[in-house]
């Protein structure tokens, strides 16, 4: 089934909650985040659609996205040349998003769903009841981007530690300098206390060595 036809079908079923068609590379539909789970159910169960496989679920932060296509989006904060975390007063704005890439083994067609949620209340219904594989993908999106999936059976961090603060894939995330009293960056090995005590740096000059 053509992606446009799938979009039409969803549009008939869900009306205004299915927004415009996304053409180009990843063909699919923009949908209202609140009805993602119902739409997913139809996509899987409808005989002519039969998307039994969720290939990929991506969480992303649209903060500072350049709509013009010139690639002038806001960059991420990293560490500076000295290894100190870069800081910024800019408060993240814009929406968070979730993208679903679907495939049907029986029909061999693909489709994508794109949903956006406000940053202040990033809640998307979980599709883990429709595709169990989503449970881990959603945990990852929660962990790294901070999207909250309502109705998820076990929404915990998956890749990072349980006591990690913040969501690293947000564009306004600032890298930590210290975690659990361990300096992550900002001091080189030679600068650290250990380095001073234990490491004898080679003498760069002088004629103390000698020996032909």
């Amino acid at each position: 089934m053509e992606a446009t036809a799938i979009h039409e079908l969803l549009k008939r079923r869900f009306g205004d909650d299915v927004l415009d068609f996304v053409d180009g590379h990843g063909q699919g539909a923009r949908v209202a985040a609140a009805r993602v789970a119902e739409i997913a159910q139809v996509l899987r169960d409808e005989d002519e659609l039969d998307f039994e496989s969720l290939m990929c679920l991506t969480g992303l932060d649209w903060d500072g996205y350049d709509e013009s296509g010139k690639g002038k989006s806001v960059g991420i904060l990293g560490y500076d040349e000295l290894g100190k975390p870069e800081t910024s007063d800019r408060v993240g704005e814009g929406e968070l998003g979730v993208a679903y890439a679907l495939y049907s083994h029986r029909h061999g067609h693909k489709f994508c769903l794109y949903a956006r949620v406000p940053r202040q209340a990033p809640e998307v219904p979980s599709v883990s009841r429709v595709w169990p594989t989503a449970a881990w993908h959603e945990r990852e999106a929660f962990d790294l981007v901070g999207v909250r999936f309502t109705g998820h059976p076990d929404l915990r961090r998956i890749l990072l530690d349980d006591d990690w603060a913040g969501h690293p894939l947000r564009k306004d995330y600032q890298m930590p300098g210290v975690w659990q009293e361990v300096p992550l960056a900002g001091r080189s090995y030679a600068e650290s206390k250990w380095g001073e005590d234990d490491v004898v740096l080679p003498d760069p000059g002088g004629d103390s060595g000698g020996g032909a």
Partner: protein
Amino acid sequence: MSEQVSTHGWQAQDEPHDLHSELLEINMGPQHPATHGVLRLLVHTDGEIVHEVTPVIGYLHRCAEKIAEGCDYRQWMVYTDRFDYLAPMNMNFGYAVAVENMLGVAVPERAEHIRVICAELQRIASHLIALGTFGLDMGAWTPLLYCFREREEILNIFERLSGGRMLYNYFDIGGLRFDAYDGFAEDVLDIINIMEQKIGEYNTLLSYNKIFVERTADVGIIDADDCYAYGCTGPVLRGAGVPFDCRKDDPYSIYDRFEFEIPYGEGEKGTIGDCWDRYMVRVREMYESCRIVRQALDAMPDGPIMAEDLKKLVKPPVGSLYTRTESSKGEIGFHIFSDGGARPFRNKVRSPSFSNLHVLEKVGPGLMISDLVATVGSLDIVLGEIDR
């Protein structure tokens, strides 16, 4: 307590008895030889029977997706090597195809052929590790040594090609970093000739060994519906009797020109989708990879190895695209969101082992602990790509 236990798999199916011990919570890993890396399995056991298993991952997390947003498309190729460090050529291939699809670049013929040869040799090398370590999990030491012997020959070829023995960074957006050396074709032909004989040797040593079959047949059965639901791909899906392979069903590069079969599990020794089926799919895939390499070698033309009209700094047009290719573990996908700039706005990696491991939560309960080891071994996971 006893009520809870009896609802689960093994006792309900086999023999009803009311000998239950208290549930014991044990950690398998993160430092454990049978978890194939820094994986922790939180296992609740009732005696020898697994009651619940929860994989705990993230010990190897490096947030490569965040790094991707800070460097340009070509620079990030080197990080893909580190995902599946047993099959870096396949990872390189997947990422290169993903970016090229967004750019709409045509890769020169010679580069495509060398890519396919490398990817298939890498698949053999990766499956050799899978075979060897799976044998090791089952208590067979010898096959590991034989498998490493052949893998070594393949690594030697890769070393001469790229300079690296383990992490190659050999593919580039639009082609390859270096051309093949003189005598590459002869070297590859040599190893293919050897491999086709040696696979029979592994079958004698391991595949049809009675003890091995007893340990793996009818154990850890993952059926096709579970595979679809949990997103399992690669040998796990094919072991469940579904002949699905991205090289055939969603062709990329020049795979549509080659003749090869998709091996799939038929329940030869037990039930469809058991550990033995998943294992045997890998053995048979090595034959098929040899066939592809032969055809690619015959057809390999001379010519350039890089797309000529490609700038150093590539800028895919605005949009997003999910591209998948078949690595040795399954479907490796990259979902790239571009804002038209030199760096990806978001680059999500969908790794095969991530989903293949998830299914363990479903098949784990009811297994014996030793069968859990067999099941994990037969999934052939690599933690580098699970944690990314």
